[in-house]
């Protein structure tokens, strides 16, 4: 059986196609100020074309994210449900998923069946999000892909105190003008985002292996900052350790999870209804 998952994020859309539990196709596209629905429709027909599949051969199209407008979907799952499943798919050891996207971050505690046990997500304030990192990197004249490796070279991270993403931008300007080095600024920001994530994780009561998903999971600087902070925390409190894992397909976790849940639902409920 073939199912598809479509994850509509605030900065990009992701498509994953699964066949009998295997990932057979994935594709992502930045929205870049284009209308999501159009981008999705195009990308989806491209997917069918590339896989040489007819529409009805895909048994369940599961959406996740901001996908209310996608009319050709079979069903919808909420982001944390899908990232939980996708995260577990990418790393079967994971007992928690941290999804860091462009505007929101989510921490989900799961069990070995990807059942969501607990979760937390950020609110209406965009402090410490991907978007924020993107703005800063643009300001600093570095690309989002290299931000991670630059951050790793920092020797003396500059604390970034601002809670607000916008004011932090000015803070960063301020730092440049004080002669602080780019890596130190970036690392400071990574640490401050990591701090927020660890707080979310805590609040979600997760423990053990944590798989990072979402676009920022590809940011090695953020990952390093997370490990560093978790280490400090461990020393202090002596318990609740996290082991962070990443996966090259981390950004697709939502789409993968959606496709997997689609298959599950299809087997369980939908098949009967269609039949």
């Amino acid at each position, binding site marked *: 059986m073939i199912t598809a998952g479509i994850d509509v994020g605030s900065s990009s859309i992701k498509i994953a196609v699964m066949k009998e539990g295997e990932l057979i196709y994935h594709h992502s596209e930045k929205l870049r100020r284009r209308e999501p629905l159009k981008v999705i429709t195009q990308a989806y027909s491209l997917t069918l074309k590339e896989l040489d599949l007819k529409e009805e051969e895909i048994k369940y199209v599961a959406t996740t994210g*901001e996908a209310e407008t996608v009319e050709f979907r079979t069903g919808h*799952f*909420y*982001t*944390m*449900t899908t990232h939980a499943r996708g995260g577990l798919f990418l790393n079967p050891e994971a007992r928690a998923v941290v999804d860091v996207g462009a505007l*929101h971050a989510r921490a989900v505690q799961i069990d070995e*069946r990807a*059942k*969501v046990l607990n*979760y937390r*997500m*950020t*609110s*209406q304030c965009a402090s410490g999000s991907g978007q924020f990192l993107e703005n800063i990197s643009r300001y600093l004249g570095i690309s989002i892909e290299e931000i991670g490796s630059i951050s790793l070279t920092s020797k003396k991270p500059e604390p970034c105190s601002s809670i607000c993403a916008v004011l932090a931008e000015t803070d960063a300007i301020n730092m440049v003008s004080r002669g602080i080095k780019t890596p130190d600024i970036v690392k400071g920001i990574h640490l401050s985002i990591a701090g927020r994530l660890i707080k979310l994780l805590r609040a979600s009561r997760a423990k053990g292996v944590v798989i990072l998903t979402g676009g920022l999971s590809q940011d090695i600087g953020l990952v390093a900052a997370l490990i560093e902070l978790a280490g400090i925390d461990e020393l202090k409190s002596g318990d609740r350790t996290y082991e962070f894992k990443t996966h090259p397909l981390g950004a697709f976790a939502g789409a993968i999870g959606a496709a997997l*849940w689609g298959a*599950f*639902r299809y087997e369980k409920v939908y098949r009967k209804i269609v039949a």
Partner: protein
Amino acid sequence: MSEINDILNRCQELYEDLSLGYVQRWKEMYGKKAVGFLPVYVPRELIRASGMLPVGIMGGGDQIEIIRGDAYFQSYICHIPRSVIEMALSGKLDCLDGMMFPSICDVIRNLSGMWQLMFPEKLSIYFDSPQNFESDTGGIFYQNELKRILDEFSKLSGITATDESLRDATALYNQNRRLTQQLYRRRADKPWEIPTSELYLLLRAGNILEVTEHNQMLERYMALASKENRKPLDNSRLVLNGSFCEQPPLGLIRALERAGGYIVDDDFVLAGRMIKSEIPLKGDPLENIVEAYLKDSKDVPFKYNIENKGDELVESFRENRADGVIFCAASFCDPGLLEQPMLQGRLDKDKIAYTSFQFAENTGQYQVIREQVGTFSDTIKLWGGQ
């Protein structure tokens, strides 16, 4: 179809009419006065027995744009006092001859003082309820408090409440309590028949309408609702907790239902449900009101309770056959938010699933909330109650 819609439209109108047209008309018609009260609870029997109309004020929701209200409150204070001030400053509360401020938190407490400074010509009563629930300690204090309030009322309305008028009022509110509880039971039985958004509007109407009118409305609605033939959905059953003071906007309540959850119990608009059963009519009416509060009132965050915190919530969860609990508290609501970890600890003990989020009465983006509740429902759907 149309009659139930008429009722709901009427409720919606009352809900949206922040200028309290109904109250103005009522006052003109009867030549009497009206007294407003803020959340959560005041014994409305006293206001009625003094020949006045009690009017529950629960903030301006998302229908009022705050310009002056923000001038009085810092960003880290909850939202309801700003909209109340905004309403008052724009003349919307002019028809209220007095205002009561129940002792539920520091914000409402201080608002009573602000009222004294801003509207010195209006009667403003800080209503101090006891945290000591012994009849001869807290009870005496409470009785004295009620007597003091009755005195003020009699000065305001020219009508002195008597045992008789207090008893009559109690009887009417008893009926209201009975009907409201019936409504809640009906919803818990068949939540698709009585959507929470409708139940909520009915409750809010009870804040404004004269009680006999509200009683009739409740009866009529219940009679009609069962004939509506609404279909059940594959939703989870949720108990909602934390919105005892500042109220979520109606859109948020609808969004919750759309995200796949039936609300089967809640703590919205508690004025009519604070006292859990009927108040006896025999004996001293004031004493009965006092005793009912001391011994038979709901467990709410602003009441001191160390012995059985959360038991009532667990009970509601069981009685209403719920799948989970949603904590839906106003941002910056100290009593509500400080209570939460204690309640959650209690739920953990019974392995009851819960989720939590915060809102403000003018929250307009439900995306994050929908996602959280949606995930919760997803989980229940995919995994059942296990």
